[in-house]
């Protein structure tokens, strides 16, 4: 799920940037530092949409670096248990398959794949129904439900299932071509 929230961060800036473009420099550094990172609490920071407030800088003794408290608005992506996501399959093996929904990695183990789909090994390992009408392989797009998330300080990993109504392949690249 996506959220638009306000976060705060203390930015350290090298004295060489102290000049007319200090603010720009600060913002670009903020983007570089924050976008794409993941915190267990808020999820993945997708994009910074604005800077709300830059507090008074504090010069650090010895180094000359200055610390600015910065409040910024950003879009974060945080997967939740029970959430339905669409994801792209990145890897298929006998134990199940891995998929990505943006920055989030999801594993769907084989017992959470419908019983009528069987694993086929080969160059392009895949799960296929007995009549061959549905196939899950690398780059397939699937809709899945998250049944568990593991949230570390800097990482979120999800377990998903496609064994439920309206879940499974939504676009098969192989079939299209």
């Amino acid at each position, binding site marked *: 799920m996506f959220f638009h929230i306000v976060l705060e961060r203390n930015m350290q800036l090298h004295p060489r940037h102290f000049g007319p473009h200090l603010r720009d420099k600060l913002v670009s550094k903020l983007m570089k530092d924050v976008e794409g990172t993941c915190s267990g609490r808020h999820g993945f920071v997708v994009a910074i949409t604005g800077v709300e407030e830059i507090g008074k800088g504090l010069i650090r003794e010895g180094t000359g670096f200055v610390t600015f408290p910065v409040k910024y608005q950003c879009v974060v992506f945080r997967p939740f248990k029970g959430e339905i996501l669409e994801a792209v399959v990145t*890897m298929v*093996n*006998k*134990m*199940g398959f*891995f998929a990505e929904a943006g920055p989030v*990695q999801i*594993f769907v*183990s*084989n*017992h*959470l794949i419908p*019983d009528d789909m069987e694993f086929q*090994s080969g160059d392009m*390992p895949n799960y296929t129904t007995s009549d061959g009408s549905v196939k899950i392989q690398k780059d397939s797009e699937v809709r899945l439900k998250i*049944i*568990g998330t*593991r949230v570390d300080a800097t990482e979120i*990993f999800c*377990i998903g*299932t496609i*064994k*439920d109504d309206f879940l499974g392949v939504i676009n098969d690249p192989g079939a299209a071509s």
Partner: protein
Amino acid sequence: MSFEPFNRLVRLAARAFYDDITMKGENQPKTGRGDNRGIAVVVLDALTKRQWVREEDLAKSLRLHSKQLRRTLRFFEEEKLITRDHRKESAKGAKIYSAAAAAAIDGQVVKEGDEKIKMHTHSYCCLDYAQIFDVVRYRMHRMKKKLKDELDSRNTIQQYICPNCGRRYSAFDALQLISYTDEYFHCENCNGELVAESDKLAAEEMGDGDDNARKRRREKLKDMLQKLEEQLKPLAQQLARVKDLPVPEFGTLQAWEAKLSAVARANGDANGGDPTKSSQGQGYGGTPMPFLGETSVEVALSGVEVKEEDTETDTKTTPMKVLPPWMIKQGMNLTKEQRGEVKPVPKIDQSSEPVDDKKPKDIKEDDEKNIQDEYLKAYYEALVKRQKEQEEAARRIEQQQEENRTSTSDQFTASVSERRVGMKFKREENENDDVEWEEGPPPSVNTGETFYKLADLNVEADAVADDEDDIDWEEG
């Protein structure tokens, strides 16, 4: 407020979940006379017939070793079925309850041994109906959910085991376990090939062909689920029945004692006023208070005449029909026990001794809704009537003397006066009937209970004759 539906719930739950629990001491040999299965059920049953009870008294009346009982009770405490309270009491035990607030409330109080009298820690326990209701519901929910989830292998996080070193992984570790050489997961320790852990519930089914095993497992799970629904049906029904009833509560030990003693004091009943004291004096008979409460309910009912009587016989017969089929499912020896418990207790009249008083209630399982309704109606009728009287009596007292406004003392005095005034009262009945009692507080369940307890005390103190009197003038 009726305990019976909840007591039935407790008894059903006891037989469903705690039937084959063995309470074992850590150092007790497994073989010896250690097989005490069923004790849990016995203890729970006994508790449904009591309120707060001193654990030694309970042990005595159950002919159990107090250590064994304590172990059982501790288990139930962990299961959240009962509330326990420990405190230090002087050997004499007198006046404890009045000093209860000051004295040690729980047994862990450090050292107060330098009090003049020697202090012993005594433990008390009682059922916690509200919590039991929740616990049983939760337990059943979990059981069903587990089976259902497993049945469609939904929402279960797959576990993996390394057959070499036994290390376990969950699907969350999948990323680290991928091997780029083959399509299996590999152990981080020994690089062994991990196997998905088959579900414990049907582990023994595994072995032959993958498909076959899976199918059979499903069947087994389905079977289990069905059995579960079937066997727990009485329990589920009882839960549904109890759902909207007010949950009976005893309050904390102190509050409960205070309530009772206040009642007793109001009655001028020197001995009965102090449950601790009386219990000290009479061994396990020391828990007479709780039973009294029940008795009074009985008395009130008998006042309501014929219609009421019908209901009682009805309610009495229904459990006979209802219980056996379920019991049989639980196992034969149990059935016998249950029957044995049921049969010897016919409808007991009010004159029976306090210990048994609670029993008839146990037996009357009001199963049908209408019966229940009728019962309730009659009950409330009696309740209102009584309250009216009490109201009136209180008024009288008010005139006589200044009254303090705390609600408890209010009620208690009221009840006393009722007792004192009893006969006089009859004459004025007509007058009371109209306006006066409208002013009175609505008959809340709580007050109702209190009143009954009061009435009970009277009964206890004055012996059976009083009951008769009561009934008489209620009809008059």
